[in-house]
């Protein structure tokens, strides 16, 4: 199966981490073992964003309801800026994401990618595939009963 969650650009890794399982992300980050010096540009804060839908699935937008999001921003000692935007209210998770985002812009990127982001992407893909496989097993196969001749 193709790797759906691309982690080779910033948009890709931030998107992957935003809804990643917090326990798994934390474990991978701890195993990676980095604790970079940093300063907060914006300390983690929880808030809401208004989720929009489209009328009829394809028309003009309408407001569906809010979801919780936590965000933060920090800068490493060399000045690299990292942003964390995560679903939910975990400040710890947002902090990890911001640190990884910053480090991914430094020479350790390849190592970090292979030890944290790739396993995370694989886990997400596996979870998605497992659900899709269960859904596929509930697909209806119709068969036609004997029809009367006209």
């Amino acid at each position: 199966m193709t790797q759906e969650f691309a982690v080779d650009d910033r948009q890709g890794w931030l998107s992957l981490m935003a809804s990643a399982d917090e326990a798994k992300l934390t474990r991978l980050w701890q195993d990676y073992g980095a604790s970079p010096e940093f300063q907060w540009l914006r300390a983690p804060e929880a808030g809401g964003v208004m989720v929009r839908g489209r009328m009829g699935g394809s028309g003009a937008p309408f407001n569906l309801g809010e979801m919780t999001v936590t965000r933060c921003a920090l800068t490493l000692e060399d000045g690299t800026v990292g942003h964390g935007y995560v679903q939910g209210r975990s400040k710890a998770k947002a902090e990890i994401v911001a640190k990884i985002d910053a480090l991914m812009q430094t020479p350790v990127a390849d190592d970090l990618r292979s030890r944290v982001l790739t396993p995370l992407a694989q886990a997400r893909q596996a979870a998605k595939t497992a659900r899709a496989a269960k859904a596929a097993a509930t697909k209806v196969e119709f068969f036609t009963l004997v029809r009367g001749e006209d």
Partner: protein
Amino acid sequence: MYVAVKGGERAIENAHAWLAEERRGDTSVAELSLSQIREQLSLAVNRVMAEGSLYDPDLAALAIKQSRGDLIEAIFLIRAYRTTLPRFGATLPVETGEMACDRRISATFKDAPGGQVLGPTFDYTHRLLDFKLAADGELPEAPTAEPRQEPTPHITEFLQGEDIIQREPVSEETPGDLTREPMQFPSNRPLRLQSLTRGDEGFVLGMAYSTQRGYARNHAFVGELRIGRCAVEMEIPELGFAIEIGEIELTECETVNQFTGSKTEPPQFTRGYGLVFGQSERKSISMALVDRALRWEELGEDNLGAAAQDEEFVLSHCDNIQATGFLEHIKLPHYVDFQSELELVRKLRREAEERTSEQLGAIAAQEAAE
């Protein structure tokens, strides 16, 4: 008239302490954890998220625990919490056509591309109590099959090719937000949909049912019903591009309604739309029916005087927190109001007793007429 009174502090404190004890119940029974509620009462969690208008399963689970399973109380807690959150902005509209579907059925097209996928449904169960659940039981794994790789297209797209179904006007206009500005009537479809998706499931169901029973002719088929997960994207100003900020479960229903045409519209199929947080099938079908009924004016249909066609009636009464607040306030102390009413009734009685029986009869007739 409102008069401040003091007193009752100790009674209130003690009542709340007892409430906490009753909430916990028999301490020889294991306490519920939030993750148990989130995972095992997930449809209750979904309802609290949808009507609380805040997608956060952990918070919804906490609210359900705190409210002892009273879902409207839980929704109240979520609504109150929601107002404390700073608003970071709005997302891009979720693209439900790219949903990873757990369930996708159509009552109108048997051979829809992507097929009829039942998903984890209560449909076709026999609604018999399953006493196996009363005992701890190991579950067999659900069977699997080759997963579908590509997104599942919306079924109405196929009808659109024939131009036989009303098209959704495409626009990127910023929709009004009823959490920021109070509803005013007449409203518009985006506001109606926002109001309905957070409206009380029972109320919206009742309204939808009334349209099926003939109050506003509105014969709907479920063109498509899908449940699954959608990525939520938002533009991040400091980054200069959009990222996925999360993934949410949604239920979407599109109804197809026969329409014989009006002065302004040719005969075609028209649409009703429901989109609700979580797995909320009954609610999203109901929402679609009520959405369709409320579109009578734009389609040039007759106002049949049905409740479901009256947006002021529907939207002013579908919010269970507003309704509960007003309904339940009458149980709070109204001693002074009542005292004055008591005085009035006593006075009227005294006067009445002084009159003759003929006069009494005349007053009663007048009151009955009123």
